């Protein structure tokens, strides 16, 4: 019996974004994620590791065990991540927050610059989350680091002007952030592109919800963005997507509670990794292009899952 698969027709294609020193590309899909019978994948989703500019004081024990030897120095930490196999590095510049004031904008930019001189994978830079300070920090970073294409953000509905304006004349890319809302995601993209930022330099962060903490919302928002873009060729929803999985899944109670605190939940390390892996796998299937993680084991597991999916897709089985 000959089975014929029904195929969708697509009118849109995800924008191709160029990252890092080696001009690594993401995006470019012209079919729904992993619908391997409908098209082939050119640029696979990338898995990176997250680091901070300061030494973390609340990271779960399984993460401490892996990184406490290097995390007092963000440069060493970044290098270790790359050695482990991170395909990109995401650094949170939380030391620049007005409450902490560990670093000035200039110092923070210096840290990113030094990291950039030491590693070859793409770098994603998030500010501290301070609406007053982030644009200044990101401007410094953008100006200090040249010769590679950083991904900088977030730029949201309120802050987009100040964040995006200094990035337009550079080569860097910007993260368009929205609070789990497909309409606002599109609106922020429109606003950013109206500033003169080419759509090929925008990556969306639709807000990541970890398993049990809004994962289904993030999933359905991403699904709607992909449907609007691919099926209806809605240009303003065709940007690649970044998900900050590590931060969200490692702050859940399920990942943070020790085996002593919650004996019935079993081994903390396995539990935390499982939480991170399930969250990331789900979002990869929803169409995420960049997935930032925290634990090396998660990285390893997800890369192997991806390879299986991608090889199937490449073969067109």
């Amino acid at each position, binding site marked *: 019996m000959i089975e014929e698969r029904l195929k969708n027709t697509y009118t849109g294609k995800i924008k191709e974004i160029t990252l890092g020193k080696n001009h690594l590309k993401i995006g470019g899909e012209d079919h729904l994620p992993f619908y391997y019978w409908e098209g082939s994948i050119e640029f696979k989703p990338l898995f990176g590791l997250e680091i901070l500019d300061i030494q973390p004081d609340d990271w779960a024990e399984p993460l401490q065990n892996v990184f406490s030897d290097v995390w007092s120095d963000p440069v060493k930490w970044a290098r270790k991540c790359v050695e482990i196999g991170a395909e990109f590095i995401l650094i949170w510049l939380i030391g620049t927050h007005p409450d902490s004031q560990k670093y000035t904008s200039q110092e923070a930019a210096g840290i990113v610059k030094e990291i950039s001189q030491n590693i070859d994978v793409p770098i994603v830079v998030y500010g501290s989350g301070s609406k007053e300070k982030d644009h200044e920090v990101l401007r410094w970073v953008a100006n200090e680091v040249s010769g590679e294409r950083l991904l900088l953000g977030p730029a949201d*509905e309120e802050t987009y*002007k100040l964040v995006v304006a200094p990035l337009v004349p550079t080569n860097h890319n910007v993260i368009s952030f929205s609070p789990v*809302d*497909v*309409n*606002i995601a*599109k*609106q922020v993209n*429109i*606003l950013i592109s*109206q*500033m*003169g930022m080419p759509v090929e330099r925008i990556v969306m962060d639709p807000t990541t919800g970890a398993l049990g903490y809004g994962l289904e919302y993030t999933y359905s928002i991403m699904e709607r963005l992909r449907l609007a873009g691919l099926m209806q060729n*809605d240009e303003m929803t065709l940007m690649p997507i970044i998900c900050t999985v590590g931060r969200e899944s490692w702050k859940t109670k399920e990942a943070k509670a020790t085996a002593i605190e919650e004996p019935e939940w079993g081994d903390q390390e396995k539990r935390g990794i499982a939480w991170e892996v399930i969250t990331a796998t789900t979002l990869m299937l929803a169409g995420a292009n960049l997935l930032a993680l925290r634990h090396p084991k998660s990285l390893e597991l997800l890369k192997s899952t991806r390879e299986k999916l991608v090889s199937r897709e490449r073969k067109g089985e």
Partner: protein
Amino acid sequence: MSRIKFMPSGRTINARKGKTIFQIAREAGIHLNTSCNGVGTCGKCKIKIIEGKVDQLTSSYSLPQTLQDQGYSLACRTVVLSDCTIFIPQETRLLGSELLEERGEIHLTEAIDRVGINPRFRRAYLALPYPSLEDNLSDWQRIEREAVKIWPGRQLVPTYRVLQEIPSLLRDSDWKVTADFFDRGDALLLTNLQKGKKTIGPFGLVVDVGTTTLVVELIELSSGSVWGKTSRYNPQITYGEDVISRVIYARQEGGLSQLQREVVKAIEHMAKKLIEESNLSPDDVSGIYVSGNTIMLHLLAGIDPSFIREEPYVPAASFGWWEDASKFGFHLLEKSLVYFLPCVASVLGADIVAGLLAAGFDEPGPLRLFIDIGTNGEMVFGNGDWFLACSCSAGPAFEGGGAKHGTRVIPGAIEEVKIDRETCDVEIVTVGDMPPQGICGSGLIDLLAELYLNGIIDRRGKFDFTCKANRLRKSNGDYEFVVSEGEDKTKDITITEADIDNLMRAKAALFAGIRLLIQTGNVSIEDIDKLYIAGVFGRYLDLEKAITIGLLPDIPIDKIEFLGNTSLLGARIVALSQDFERKAKEIASRITYLELARSSRFMDEYVSALFLPHTHLDLFASVAGKIPKKKKGGSC
């Protein structure tokens, strides 16, 4: 008198010879560009004489010779001497300044032509044979015998009150009386008897009980002609400006009867004026037809409306019935019968049902959308066989409320705004050409569209400080744009970012409602054949601007009609025709009401409409071409 025709609109106005074209245009409500107010110094009101004899007044501003050679002159310096045809060039016109034509009356006439006049009340002159020993029928049977000759086969019934009056009235009037009957369906009910022969009447009173305004019309039911019309504030306003505060007041001890007394007293006061002006007597008014929102009808009927406020928002009555006027405290009109037009839901009242009648929704036909814009935006979508309706809370934004310098439509209210793209100068038109007092709803919509089209606000409605508009400033922590400068800064009329937020939310709520109705009907915006706008607000609306900001859907403007006070018009149709009374009930029963509070899709539509004109620009193709390109270093 001369006939002055203005092109390109083609409007023709009769005017006295010797007046300037500027004066004639202004009196006709056509506003010409000016900054010297017509004294011949600014040179902005240039027009072209196509035909007719004119004379020129002296002017301190002289038009370039090339323009003069082409027939241009200044409207304020040109006096008409004969019939003229005048062309108003684009730059002289203040956009959309001509009021929309009220089409409601036209629809009403068409509707009445279709079914014919057939009111509940009939009047008959009866010259009764004198009673005698041979012809000894009772007084009532005597009336019945004559009346049946006019309406053969109908059963006739007297009211008790009339029976009490009959004996002396018949004898005092030499047995010649005018009798008013009410067609109850099963029988004709004698409701009133007057001495002698009345050649006119019977009459009805048509009442629109608005939350803010009461409108009363006196009509002759037999002919459909309007004998008088008057309006005043609803006196209940002193107990709360909005319906909710009145419902709360009604809950208090004696509150409900107080509110009822106030509104009945006001209606009777207005009725008395109309009756006296027409040299009629209160007895000539047989029926009172009341339309209004559900809460206003409850208050007039003296029925507790308080549960409308609580989930699941159910009203006590849906009306659509007759009752003696005396039961509601009418004194002057105690002999009349009152009809309350039917309501659909707590937020979809008789005013909307009446509106649908006035818009011709009783007839099956193409897909039509009816919108009544006020504090609540009620909208109904359908083809005459089915109707979908919803109500979105727009807040007072379109009535000038909730804005720092917002105002109702009063003399001096800024109703039109035009911003010059190069200089950022603002030109305004006020109601009655009075000094500016504030900005009314239509002015706010104009302003929002102009700010957007000139790049002063971005698509979120936030001021763009990279544009160098010198009218942007910060005041008390909020950013604002100076619309009209006062004697000093404190007297300036401005629009703030918070005002714009309110407007954005209001327009988003309305458009989300429209989208939801259309999607629920499983059609698209292009399928709308006609869009009817009801309510006073609609008259001053610049349709193009309303589309630009995404308040109204992007459909060709010739598909949009402004109907006027459809609540009143609909009640009048019901008064004139029993068929329409039945149709009102049918329409009310066929409306499917969508409760938006329960709809998650509404929230989604709402957020996507919180953008200028909309997140999905493909819904506003006509606006796409007008969107300003980001330009650098411009003054504005």
